[in-house]
Every structure is written in structure tokens, then in C-alpha cells.
């Protein structure tokens, strides 16, 4: 290794939420970490802390992670009171320690929402999102093999909007950042994505009603348009999708032939 930067290390004080299981009372514990390389990702820094804890015969800090490439939606850390930390449109796994300074204190907490109960430490149960998807976030049409190009025309603008909505990785940062713990941005991204595409049309009305019902059943809060979700979203999902879902819901309520 050459160059001074690669040898620079930082000392970081971590204040981390520790909770041994879903029922246990949690508390914030303090860890002093030296030898933090600015090149580490936030999760790699936690790996280093965990290596040390294991060496001391202590329980490592449990946190969700998978791809570490910013595309899977597994990581879910509230870092200094912001979902995924201080950087815009960046998941916690893509947040690097070079954004911090030597001597910084960093608070790390799990997502907080009744609908996302803490399983252990920083790991929360996000299966509420799975149940919202299971209520209608799919198309039942057999897709078959890829059809010929241009046999199913989609307006460029709609394709773009659907693609933007489909960028949602389901991490739950929107819920975590929302002052009301609402899941509107997540649900609306899924509703908008399918309502904009021809494949989504057959189930368009039933989908939005079923998904909103499922969302409400999970105990998320109500959206009051603070728009913190959009600012916290690592994929930059727009609140325009929420307005679209509101329209879709109103339309479906009025035109759907179901009286239930």
C-alpha cells in the first residue's frame, strides 16, 4: 500500500441499541472503536467491532445485511437519527467511514415502527412489507417467454415512471424516516409500478384496494405529507407515487364493482 491516506485511521465512539430478543428491554451501549479505516463501509466497521466482541466472548451486534452493493434492501440502520445515515440516496452498506471525522460519536438504532418489531439489536422484522406485496403487488397473468420487441407498446414516459417506481428495494427507510411511521411510499411505489404497465391492468382496481387494506392492517401510521420518506429513500422514490396511489385508490373505490 502506498500513500498516507490508506494508513490513516480514525477513532469512533459508537452508541448502539442492544436488545437480546424481541421481548427484552433494550438499551444503548457505548463502544470505542480505534483503527477505523476511512475506506471501510459502515457495515465493515461494524464487522470489525463484532470481531472484537467475539474475541472477548461477547455477543456480536446483530444487524441485517446481504448484498452490500446497495441493491438488496437488507441493511436497515438508523444512523444519527437518519435512515441509512447522512448521505443522500445511499444505503448504509454504501456509506463509507470517510464521511466521518476522527473522534466522532455515532448513534445507531434500529428502524422504529410498531409494524417493524425489533427481533434483536438492530434487526427488525419487515415481513409486514411481504404481506403488503402478497396482497396484490404482482401480476397473475402468465408471462410466458419473452415476447417480440414492440408487440406490447408502452409509452416511453410510462415505462420511465414505472421503472423509477420499481427501483424500490423495500428496505423500509421510508417508514423509519416518516414522523408517522407510515408505509405509503413503499406501497405506492408498488401500486404505481404495476398500474403504469399494460400487464398490471387486469388487476389494477383490486390491487390498490387490497394493498392499502393490507398496509392499514399492519399498523403503519397515516401519511400527512411531510415528504421525509422521499428524502430518506436510498433509491430516490418520489412522493408523486403517493399521489398516484391516492388517485388510483379513489378511482378503484368508485369504479370497482365489488360492494365489500
Amino acid at each position: 500500500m502506498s500513500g498516507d491516506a490508506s494508513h490513516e485511521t480514525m477513532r469512533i465512539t459508537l452508541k448502539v441499541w442492544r436488545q437480546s430478543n424481541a421481548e427484552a428491554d433494550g438499551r444503548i451501549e457505548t463502544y470505542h472503536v480505534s483503527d477505523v479505516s476511512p475506506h471501510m463501509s459502515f457495515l465493515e466497521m461494524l464487522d470489525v467491532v463484532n470481531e472484537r466482541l467475539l474475541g472477548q466472548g461477547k455477543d456480536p451486534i446483530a444487524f441485517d445485511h446481504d448484498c452490500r452493493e446497495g441493491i438488496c434492501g437488507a441493511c436497515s440502520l438508523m444512523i444519527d437519527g437518519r435512515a441509512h445515515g447522512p448521505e443522500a440516496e445511499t444505503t448504509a452498506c454504501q456509506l463509507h467511514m470517510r464521511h466521518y471525522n476522527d473522534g466522532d460519536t455515532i448513534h445507531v438504532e434500529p428502524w422504529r415502527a410498531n409494524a417493524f418489531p425489533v427481533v434483536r439489536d438492530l434487526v427488525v422484522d419487515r415481513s409486514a412489507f411481504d404481506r403488503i406485496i402478497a396482497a396484490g403487488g404482482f401480476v397473475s397473468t402468465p408471462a410466458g417467454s419473452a415476447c417480440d420487441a414492440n408487440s406490447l407498446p408502452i409509452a416511453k414516459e410510462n415505462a420511465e415512471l414505472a421503472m423509477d417506481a420499481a427501483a424500490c428495494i423495500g428496505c423500509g427507510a421510508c417508514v423509519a424516516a416518516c414522523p408517522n411511521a407510515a408505509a405509503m411510499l413503499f406501497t405506492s411505489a408498488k401500486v404505481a409500478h404495476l398500474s403504469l404497465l399494460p400487464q398490471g391492468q387486469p388487476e389494477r382496481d383490486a390491487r390498490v384496494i387490497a394493498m392499502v387494506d393490507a398496509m392499514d392492517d399492519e399498523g403503519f401510521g397515516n401519511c400527512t405529507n411531510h415528504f421525509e420518506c422521499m428524502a430518506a429513500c436510498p433509491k430516490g422514490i418520489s412522493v408523486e407515487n403517493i399521489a398516484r396511489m391516492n388517485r388510483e385508490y379513489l378511482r378503484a373505490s368508485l369504479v370497482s364493482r365489488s360492494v365489500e
Partner: protein
Amino acid sequence: MLRWIGNALNSSVGKKIVMGLTGLLLVGFLVEHLHGNLKLYEGDGTGFNEYVEFLQGFGPLLVLAELGLVALFLCHIFLALRLTLENRQARKHRYAVRNNRGKESFGSVSMFATGALILGYLIKHLIDYRFADGFFDDPKGAVANTLSQPGNAVIYMIAAVVLGVHLSHGFRSAFQSIGASHPKLDAILDKAGIAVAVFFAVGFGSFPVYYLFFWSPSS
């Protein structure tokens, strides 16, 4: 048969649509209210007396309109209570540290507080005029009598500012809630929300300022 209506109105989306619609209708009421009040500046308030007489001329229709207004307010207030309680419940365990990303505003986080203050003011306002003895004999005199008292004038000024803060989030937010969002529209609404807030705060705030500082009984 009507279960779908109940389901729709009880859903999180239905609630916000009703909240937005009732809010916008109440803004419509504010427009007419301010229009009527501005007649206080017309011919030393005689225009205002004529306006009150004109409204009274509607008789039972006016009562019907008042009842409609009461229904709008009750609906808006009931939903505000429900949304606030439900949203508090949705996150029982709060963050030890929380920072926003600059999207939430003073207006958006204080909606319930500003709404409650406006309700308190509304009750005083109705007692001052609508239900005051002799108001309909000389409306402009009653207004002058109330607003030339410093204590009342200050309360009315504060109420105008609080209304502006409420509208700074509410007006813009209502359009999003009813699904009216589009890049073209949003750019206008972002500015219009603030303009509407300032317009009503200055408009309604002007009356206590006028009667406290610029009006004299002899004039």
C-alpha cells in the same frame, strides 16, 4: 350495500382524501369570509353592515349553509384527532436520536397544534360576534368595539399568523392528498401554498392592526 364507502373512508388513503377535501372547502369559506370582512374598509364599515344584512336576507338558507360549515369543521377536526392519535400509536418506541432531512416543515409538524389553536380562537370568535347580544344591530360597531381593545386585537393578530402557519402546509398538502400531483402542478403548488398562507395571514391580520392603531371612534 354501502360497506365499500365505510371501508374507503376508514382507509388511510380515504382519511387523507377527506382531510384534504374538507380543508380545501374550508379555504373556500375563508375566501368568502375575507371578502366579507374587507367591506369593513368600505365607506367606514357601512359596506360591511350591508353585507351582513345581505347574508341575513337568505334566512333559512343561511342556517343551512352554517350547518354545512359546522359539518365541514367537525369532519376536519374528527379526522385530525384520529390521524394524530393513530400516528402516535404507530411508533410507540421513539428514536433516541432523530434528525430530519429538511422536508418536514414547521407548518407540517405543527398541524395538530395550530389546528387546536385555531379551534380555540374560532370558539372565542363565535362568542365575540355570532352569538353576541346586539351584533346584528350594528355589525361594524361590534367589530370596532372588539378589535380596538388591545387584548382582543393581539389574540386576533396571533390567530391570523397561526392560520397562516396551518395553511403553509395544509393548502399544498391537500392537493397531494386528493392525488393532484404532477411536475407541472407541483412547481406551482410549492409556491402557491406559501402565497395562500401569507395572503390569509395578512388579510385577516389587517383588521386588528387597523382597529387597534388606525381607527378612532370619531372617524
